[in-house]
């Protein structure tokens, strides 16, 4: 019994210590990132890596999610003849929840892992030390560009995901479920409110920042060779995914309560 309490206590203390360390890390990255020198090449590379190269994954995810939403809503709603609200369900689910969350999770898997692995490898092969001896601050050179890219590119990806997701729903509804195309689009457009999209984009920014921060944090503090980098990568993806789901609930509660 006592050992159990001790264990829980230790876990709790560990949690507090990690949260503190993460907070300091984030603060450092923001302060250092805001002060010159800036590294436009590094920033550009990250913007392209996150924004452009994530497009296929995010696009595919959004397309099939929109499609399955329409299909599944149809089978459910036809039981109480509410098929006509399918466009509303699709557009709301995509813009408010599924777009940001799914894009966030996909990018967490793709970029969170890549960041942790790259920075972690740089740590264990002394490249970060070398960077410092060459008068370059790793927070400015490595971490700030990734945070900027996460913060700005995720909303962009989510906007694309919103469009493709709605299009997926439209495809299934018109070709398979016999909706009138014009009516479908009208209904979607009329029903949609600014807050639906904006809330999704705000969420996306938050998720992007959290993916980059956790990816960099785990990479930066990784130690112990290849195994350490592996652990860092796993931790980065798992913690970012968890945080995305928790943040998503919190932000929904704030926006729509």
């Amino acid at each position: 019994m006592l050992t159990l309490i001790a264990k829980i206590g230790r876990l709790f203390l560990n949690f507090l210590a990690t949260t503190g360390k993460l907070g300091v890390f984030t603060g450092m990255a923001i302060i250092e990132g805001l002060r010159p020198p800036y590294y436009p090449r590094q920033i550009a590379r990250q913007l392209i890596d996150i924004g452009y190269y994530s497009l296929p994954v995010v696009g595919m995810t959004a397309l099939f999610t929109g499609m399955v939403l329409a299909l599944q809503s149809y089978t459910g709603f036809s039981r109480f003849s509410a098929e006509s609200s399918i466009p509303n369900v699709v557009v709301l689910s995509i813009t408010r929840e599924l777009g940001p969350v799914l894009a966030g999770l996909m990018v967490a898997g793709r970029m969170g892992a890549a960041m942790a692995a790259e920075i972690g490898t740089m740590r264990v092969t002394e490249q970060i030390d070398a960077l410092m001896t060459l008068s370059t601050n790793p927070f400015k050179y490595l971490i700030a560009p990734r945070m900027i890219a996460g913060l700005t590119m995720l909303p962009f990806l989510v906007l694309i995901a919103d469009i493709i997701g709605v299009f997926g729903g439209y495809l299934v509804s018109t070709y398979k479920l016999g909706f009138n195309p014009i009516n479908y689009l009208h209904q979607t457009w009329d029903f949609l409110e600014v807050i639906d999209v904006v809330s999704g984009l705000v969420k996306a920014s938050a998720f992007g920042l959290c993916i980059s921060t956790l990816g960099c944090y785990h990479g930066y503090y990784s130690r112990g060779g290849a195994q350490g980098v592996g652990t860092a990568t796993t931790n980065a993806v798992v913690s970012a995914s968890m945080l995305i789901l928790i943040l998503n609930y919190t932000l929904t509660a704030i926006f729509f309560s």
Partner: protein
Amino acid sequence: MMMNPQQIPSKILISNLKKSFGSKHVLRGLNLEVSKGESVVIIGGSGTGKSVLLKCILGLIKPDSGSIKIDGQELRGSSRKLIAQAMTKISMLFQSSALFDSLPVWENVAFLLLQRRQYKRQQAKEMAIQQLAAVGLNERVADLFPSEISGGMQRRVALARAVIHKPEIIFFDEPTAGLDPIFSSVINSLIVKCVKELGATAITITHDMVSARHVGDRIAMLHEGKIIWDGPAKGIEHSKNPYVDQFINGQSDGPIKIEV
């Protein structure tokens, strides 16, 4: 230590430096003085803290106590700006080369020039290619990535990166480890050449006694966190110090105990 005003302060002066990792006491009150233009070699068993010493001087590891002075200026407890200024004088060749594998060879070599934004990229590239030639590397290597060249070539690239901005102080951490004897000798000669040409102050860590005699004016031996012997490189065979004798002759029995 008395310092008379006419005398130039020693380039590097380390006194009573201590560093522990948990219960592991790595540096236990280390003293070392290096004067300007001198090349000092540090020898000592694996894991005695040679790399830790260099990293303490570079500010990559925070020592627990003691003093580190560069050109008479205390680094420990100084403002970040002063430390950053002192750091621009020092350059390091890492044990693992530590080239940036996301950048091509020439950008690695020209890294500091590009950071300082003194030169256009094309200019910096030309200077990098010149520096590569100085360490015996072909122009064709410039556009390759570090992962595409051999370990020995990586070491040369790292050497080029360490000396391109003509630093006043250079640290070499096991520059010849893992290289064949001929290549080691090439690297040693390059180090001697770079140091002599730049008039730089150098600290070299090595296990390799051939290399130690080649590059060092003076040899210091690190054991159990302290410098236990310090003398001219020429006379090390006659040091009469049992630790040094055991080390340079590579004997398994003697005062140095290896924990297995």
